[in-house]
């Protein structure tokens, strides 16, 4: 898998249940194989789906792994050619692991 930039909205160590209510996000750059994935936490000033979309665009994120997301934001991100894997329930680590294995799909309960 080529190197990718992934964003996961967080709720403690889990994928945040709501995209619009997440106040921190995990940004990961890497391909998962070499172990050289670079992880970075970003704390948002307030929960806002619009600001999160803006961050995703400015950070050149290629994939968003999230749980509940409103259709407007999902359509906007996919229109911007960003892959959105939604309705993922579980820890961010297990979601990332499964993503790098190429097995993560929308609706996965990990």
């Amino acid at each position, binding site marked *: 898998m080529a190197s990718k930039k992934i964003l996961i909205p967080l709720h403690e160590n889990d994928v945040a249940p709501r995209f619009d*209510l997440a106040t921190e996000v995990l940004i990961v750059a890497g391909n998962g194989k070499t172990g050289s994935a670079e992880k970075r936490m970003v704390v948002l000033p307030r929960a806002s789906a619009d600001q999160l979309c803006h961050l995703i665009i400015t950070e050149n994120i290629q994939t968003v792994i999230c749980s509940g997301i409103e259709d407007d934001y999902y359509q906007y991100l996919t229109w911007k050619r960003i892959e959105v894997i939604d*309705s993922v*329930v579980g820890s961010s680590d297990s979601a990332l692991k499964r993503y790098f294995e190429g097995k993560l799909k929308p609706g996965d*309960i990990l």
Partner: protein
Amino acid sequence: MKKAKSANTDENSGAFRRPPSDQSLAIPPHIHNLFDIPVDFCELLDQIAMGVVVLNLERKIVVMNQTLKALTGFSQKEFCGFTCTHILRSNICIQDCPVLRIDEKSGPKCIEGNLINTERQLIPIRITTAPLRNINHQIIGFLETIEDIRLLRELDETASHAYKFSKIVGRSPQMQKIFQSIPSLAQSDSSVLITGETGTGKDMVAETIHQASNRAKGPFAKINCGALPDTLLESELFGHQKGAFTGAVENKPGRIQLANNGTLYLTEIGDLPLPLQVKLLTFLDDKEVFPLGSIKGFSADVRIIAATHRNLEQMVRSGRFRKDLLFRLNVIRLHLPPLRERHGDVQLLLDHFLNTLSAQLGKKTLTLSPKALKILLTYKYPGNVRELKNIVEYAINICSDQQIRSKHLPSYLLNPEPFDMSEAAQQTNVPQAPLSDETGFIRVEPDRNWSDTEKRMIMEALIRAGGRKNKAAASLGWARSTLWRKMNQYGIR
């Protein structure tokens, strides 16, 4: 705040017992000592017409009912063991979890909020949380009920109207007769067959009957019998078993099962294929659903409302509709009159749509010039109320003055063709001509609303621009962001 104490369930004293493995529902939980024999707890919960979830002290899901699965969209069993926050996906759970506010002395807490389901819809809900106690009054878990309050919100937003019943507007004697009959029809559980030309408001009447009935708190499931291929329609209606066909990776409940304790609305029933007519007939007789590939049936308490614009009696005669199904559906027949026969309603509807659509489109309420009013009052409306609404919507969009004049009305109204009564009830498949030419002139067709017109304009602009959005936006006179927003709105990819 005093936190709830942890307590183990007393096997001898507690009425609710779970099997040893908390994460698995392989052995369903039972309620003992209520009847002579244990009662299946899950089945009991499934009979409740609002979402119910039982949580343990760690706020992890122990069990949730079918209604909540339908509301959230999570149908698997793997959610047991996850905190409710991850499955409900409600703002209440994240911002103001009611469970955390419950202590030993607390009673139930009721909060309004919203959730996002797996179909990415934001649904307003009301959550009521109550502690579950053992016989020693120790808290052993929590019971949450989740109500879908979309309808209440809609009712709040809609002001009452003298000539309205729910969303239906009319003061003609024919409509008053229908308004008077709906409350009594709603109280009965008999099947209803709604007939009427296209655009007369069959869907609205069906929903109104449901909302006025005792099943109003239950689901209202709508399925268009003419919109899906036969096999997909069967799976959608009756559900399927895991492995029933390629791609059936899990059990899926059908609309009939999801409409349990509610109403199933079958629109375009005249387009239901014959093999499915037989299966529907079996369900109407036995009240039991057999999902595709399953030998086990599920009983479902569902009221059926069917609607069609076709002449079912004629279809029976030509062998395209089963006579026995017609008899079962035709217990109560409600015929909606075409707009041309509803004397006095055209003016009322014009005023109603001018007010509501102007507000929706963010414009000042417009008036009609005497000439425009005369044209609109004398037109025959083969597309009925839908067509009238579309004409008003078109005129509001086109008109930049304070008054709608005849030049703001669709051109076909100015030179109407003689109205053919027999044509009104027939379906036609005429290929559609382009909506706009190179000069940008827009033509709205009868029975086509502004949204459809705009959608086609976008499609045509994109085709002309060879898929280049910048060029398409420029040809429409819009900014690229406006084009994106509209494409998003109409689902154009």
